[in-house]
């Protein structure tokens, strides 16, 4: 056997494959790693999916204190109930409204004043002096989502007003979706979770495995075998890619079964998962080399991962953030994976997906080449 010619493609492919086999065996024999890699993103989808599925058809709680207790006030309460946007909890007229709201953690409460019916009669009769009948909205400004709730209440009241006036509305708006189908939050969320799960697994997979193997001296032993740096990094990337494909398939399967998501599955999904893996395994390799100790490499990975997780549009749209943070998001590689995946899976916008793929592709290429350049198997420090 001619072992002198070691730098041929066939031999390298064998080496890479041998490495992938060992990595996969090491993976499935450690149950906690399997849990965090496969089950954890699925749990995130289930938890957040359930929370936000409710939100898509949300019926808000609304406390109503009717101080008037007349036919008119009861009709108003019934009209609000019939809008199907609120579940109404009546509050005793004898109760101190503010105290009640605080104790019972009610973030919005409507108080119908004592002279409501009389004011309505005046308003609708010939003696109308142009002053509207006023309700009190008692609210907790620190409560999450209370402004949305007030907005919905105002919309319902505007509808009641308009109906009572007996005139058709002067201006109406017709919502037209820019997407081809009706999408819910879960369809926004799943591509983001895929991008984030692949990123964290690739980054931490590369950092943890390499730092551990370097510290234990396994890399030093490997440096006395025919394996090269390119073989090593490629086998790391391919191993992470295989796991990413499995993990993504499980996430999508659960999303389809539990939430009946409506997402476009096409070649872009594979492209973005691959670019996600290349980028973050490469980045992990660089961190392992730059940070001398395993702990500092993991800390550096944390420092990179958290801003990306929360500022790249994984959990909520980037447009919700202040302008300077939106600009910052656009320098984060995960932003382009998120945007690219959503462009392909939700909007089916291939041009937008291509643009994102090019940007993250350049990043992946640079990081991968840098990873190859600075990675060393032999533990030489100088």
């Amino acid at each position, binding site marked *: 056997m001619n*072992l002198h010619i*070691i730098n041929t493609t066939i031999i390298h492919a064998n080496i890479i494959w041998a490495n992938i086999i060992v990595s996969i065996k090491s993976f499935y024999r450690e149950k906690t790693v399997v849990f965090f890699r496969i089950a954890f993103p699925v749990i995130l989808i289930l938890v957040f999916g359930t929370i936000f599925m409710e939100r898509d058809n949300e019926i808000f709680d609304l406390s109503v204190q009717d101080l008037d207790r007349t036919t008119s006030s009861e009709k108003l309460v019934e009209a609000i109930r019939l809008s199907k946007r609120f579940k109404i909890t009546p509050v005793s007229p004898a109760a101190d409204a503010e105290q009640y709201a605080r104790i019972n953690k009610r973030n919005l409460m409507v108080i119908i004043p004592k002279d409501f019916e009389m004011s309505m009669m005046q308003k609708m009769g010939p003696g109308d002096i142009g002053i509207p009948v006023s309700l009190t909205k008692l609210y907790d400004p620190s409560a999450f989502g209370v402004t949305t709730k007030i907005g919905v209440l105002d919309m319902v009241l505007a509808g009641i007003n308009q109906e009572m006036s007996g005139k058709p509305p002067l201006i109406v708006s017709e919502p037209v979706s820019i997407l081809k189908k009706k999408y819910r939050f879960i369809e926004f969320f799943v591509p983001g979770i895929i991008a984030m799960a692949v990123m964290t697994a690739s980054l931490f997979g590369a950092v943890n495995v390499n730092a551990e193997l370097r510290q234990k001296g*396994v890399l030093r*032993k490997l*440096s*006395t075998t025919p394996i090269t740096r390119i073989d090593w990094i490629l086998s790391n990337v391919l191993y992470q890619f295989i796991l990413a494909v499995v993990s993504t398939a499980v996430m999508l399967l659960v999303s389809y079964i539990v939430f009946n998501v409506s997402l476009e599955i096409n070649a872009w999904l594979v492209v973005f998962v691959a670019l996600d893996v290349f980028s973050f395994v490469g980045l992990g390799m660089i961190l392992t080399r730059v940070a001398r100790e395993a702990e500092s490499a993991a800390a550096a990975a944390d420092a990179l991962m958290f801003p990306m997780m929360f500022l790249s549009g994984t959990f909520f749209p980037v447009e919700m953030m202040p302008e300077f943070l939106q600009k910052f998001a656009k320098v984060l590689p995960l932003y382009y994976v998120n945007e690219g995946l959503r462009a392909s899976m939700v909007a089916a916008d291939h041009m937008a997906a291509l643009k994102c793929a090019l940007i993250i592709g350049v990043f992946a290429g640079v990081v991968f080449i840098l990873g190859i350049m600075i990675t060393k198997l032999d533990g030489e420090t100088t």
Partner: protein
Amino acid sequence: MTQNSEYAIEVHNLTKHYKGLSAVDNISFTVKKGEVFALLGPNGAGKTTTVEIIDTIRKPTSGKVILLGMDVTRNKYTIIPRIGVLPQGFSSFDRITVKETLQFYSRLFCRRKTDINALMALVNLKDKVKVKYKNLSGGLKQRLGIAVALVNDPEIVFLDEPTTGLDPRARRAVWDVLLGLKKKGKTIFLTTHYMEEAELLADTVAIIAKGKITAMGSPGELIENNADYLVILLKSVDENVFEIVQKMGFLPVYDSHGDIRVRLDHTDDVRRLLNAVEAGGASFNGLDVRKPNLEEVFLKLTEETLLEGSAGIKEAK
């Protein structure tokens, strides 16, 4: 290239600096094909740096290493398939079994015909085939490391402190494996700080201290050339013996049996010492006068180097 050279390893003026400190300081030596060569030295003497430059893990600051006729810095990937390495503190993948580990390394060398079972038999690990690496004891891990170093049927085997940290029984088991390799005619380059290991296994021993080789030769030659003194052993001594010998200006030491060992530079000192002990009324039950063993030669040579800061190479060959 000098492929047909009688030497498996040629080291010429090898030097390695780390941040201004000299780990290996201009050393030269050769290792013949089929020879067991032991680099013997205290901790921090430069053994590992030397072996890691020779077996391609590290690069030298200056000097040249010729392995099987090739310069190691220029021919790493041609040399690697022909050598086997057990690095210091060998470690492998925790959740991979003994057999899988050997199969993995065999695949790295693209060896389809490696007889994994024979290798496991050689290092006496046949009953541990399915045991994961993390569940092996220290001695078994080292034996697996040696088997891994042999998967490519190498011409030269490098073993960096193969028995450090092992209990005596595990150490003997590793020695048995190494004696088996020696019988097969492999060239073995061994680093160790255990004298008995070097004495038992090595054809040639080089003593290294502070990055310099202070003596080299067969264990017998090293003793012969450096035993310019005698060792007297006084057995079952009473308390006064130590004090009397010390007062005479000698440096007595107790050994692990409670006997006193004294280094004497002249034959006349034997009579002088015995007379003094007798005159002091002290007693002992046994006496042995002999030439120093390898350990004592080693201590003498490394102490001299440490005290003097440098020493010339004493080529015994």
